[in-house]
């Protein structure tokens, strides 16, 4: 699959932006466990926080392949910045697809401009993959829904202005928009994570949290089957593309090191066992990229098969990047275990991708069942 001239131009623009704005701050994001405000500000100025939204809301209205390229390039620079694009877009697209006219008019322009940041609140202390059994509840009381429960591991939970929260309503999973300043909502930062440490995670505590009844997204009972899975489809796609970018970063760093580091009188790149790792990294990054492009192309065609192809792409890309990052550290030896080179961060960030947006094992269950049924 070849990119169009326009897509290639976007790729050049994104790459230059990441090299100039994102890469220089990635280590600080990891070390200090936050996103530099000037990086977010420059993302806003470029319009990237509206990359997934239509122009009528002030968005960039990019095609899906180009959205993938943006997430690949941002992911090459910093997994936490890519996480911002992912969770913010999940909320924006849920509102766009299943929100009311009032919700679209109220939120989408400000979200496209990045004036309001969104975050996705599904996971709970006792509920991860088993999402339909979330324990948070929402009960209608006059003109309000009253939420009670606890969400955990919420990416960008420290800075988001609005959360899409999944709760049992009349015993069925249902989605709600909850603003940060809603009465009864408190957030607690989560730190010292293994990877993606700049993603500003938080726990959310709902204690008789009152929200207007108009804040329901969609209807009672479609919270997961339609709203949540729509969000997660975008999440899975952008995580997969981010893995390609992170894999590319592993490759580029490893090539640079293999060209310059000398042992036994020659550069590492002359060593056949190093060449093997570089070969596998080169080919596997390309393969993951092609799976992502294919999923993006099908999304542009509004093809129902795009959903499974996105699962395939995320499964392969997240496994691929773990091997790539592990090999990148191996090539760097002791240097790769230190903060002097970015590959140790790449390895920690890589692991997160096998857990978020569906674990590798959930992917193995779903993809194999799909193959058994359809092939």
């Amino acid at each position, binding site marked *: 699959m070849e990119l169009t001239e326009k897509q290639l131009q976007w790729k050049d623009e994104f790459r230059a932006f990441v090299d100039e704005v994102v890469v220089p701050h990635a280590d600080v994001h990891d070390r200090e466990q936050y996103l530099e405000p000037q990086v977010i500000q420059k993302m806003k100025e470029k319009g990237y926080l509206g990359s997934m939204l239509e122009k009528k809301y002030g968005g960039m209205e990019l095609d899906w392949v180009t959205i993938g390229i943006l997430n690949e390039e941002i992911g090459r620079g910093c997994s936490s910045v890519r996480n911002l694009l992912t969770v913010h877009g999940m909320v924006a697209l849920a509102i766009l697809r299943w929100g009311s006219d009032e919700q679209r008019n109220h939120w989408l322009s400000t979200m496209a401009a990045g004036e309001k940041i969104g975050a996705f609140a599904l996971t709970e202390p006792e509920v991860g993959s088993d999402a339909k059994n979330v324990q948070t509840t929402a009960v209608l009381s006059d003109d309000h829904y009253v939420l009670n429960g606890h969400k955990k591991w919420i990416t960008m939970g420290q800075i988001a202005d609005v959360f899409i929260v999944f709760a049992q309503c009349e015993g069925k999973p249902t989605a709600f928009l909850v603003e940060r300043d809603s009465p009864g909502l408190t957030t607690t930062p989560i730190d010292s994570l293994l990877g993606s440490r700049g993603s500003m995670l938080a726990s959310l505590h709902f204690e008789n949290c009152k929200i207007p009844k108009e804040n329901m997204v969609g209807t009672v009972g479609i919270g*997961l089957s339609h709203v949540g899975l729509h969000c997660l489809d975008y999440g899975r796609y952008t995580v997969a593309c981010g893995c390609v970018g992170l894999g590319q970063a592993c490759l580029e760093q490893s090539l640079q090191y293999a060209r310059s580091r000398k042992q036994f009188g020659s550069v590492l790149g002359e060593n056949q066992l190093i060449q093997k790792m570089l070969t596998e990294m080169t080919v596997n990054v390309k393969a993951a990229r092609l799976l992502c492009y294919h999923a993006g192309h099908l999304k542009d065609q509004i093809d*129902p098969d795009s959903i499974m192809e996105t699962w395939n792409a995320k499964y392969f890309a997240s496994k691929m990047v773990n091997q790539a990052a592990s090999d990148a550290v191996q090539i760097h030896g002791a240097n790769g275990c230190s903060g002097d080179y970015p590959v140790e961060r790449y390895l920690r960030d890589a692991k997160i991708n096998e857990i978020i947006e569906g674990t590798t094992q959930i992917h193995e269950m*779903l993809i194999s069942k799909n193959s058994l049924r359809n092939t």
Partner: protein
Amino acid sequence: METTNVKVKQFLSKFFRKHELQDDEDIFSLGFVNSLFAMQLVMFLEKEFGIKVDNKDLDMSNFKSINAICELVDRKAS
């Protein structure tokens, strides 16, 4: 309506490969579809028939059988 029926049946056939789905049979009671099916079905209907499925259409009764789906498409297209 007949063309709609053929197209819907063709789409559903890949999910019900080992079962000859009848027009009035309850799709969801058969246990063939997974959690992604609802999303795939909505995408298919919107693309194939140029309709927009919105919140108020998301009543299970609109999707429970081939007949129900065809009626929804017919209603949305008219």
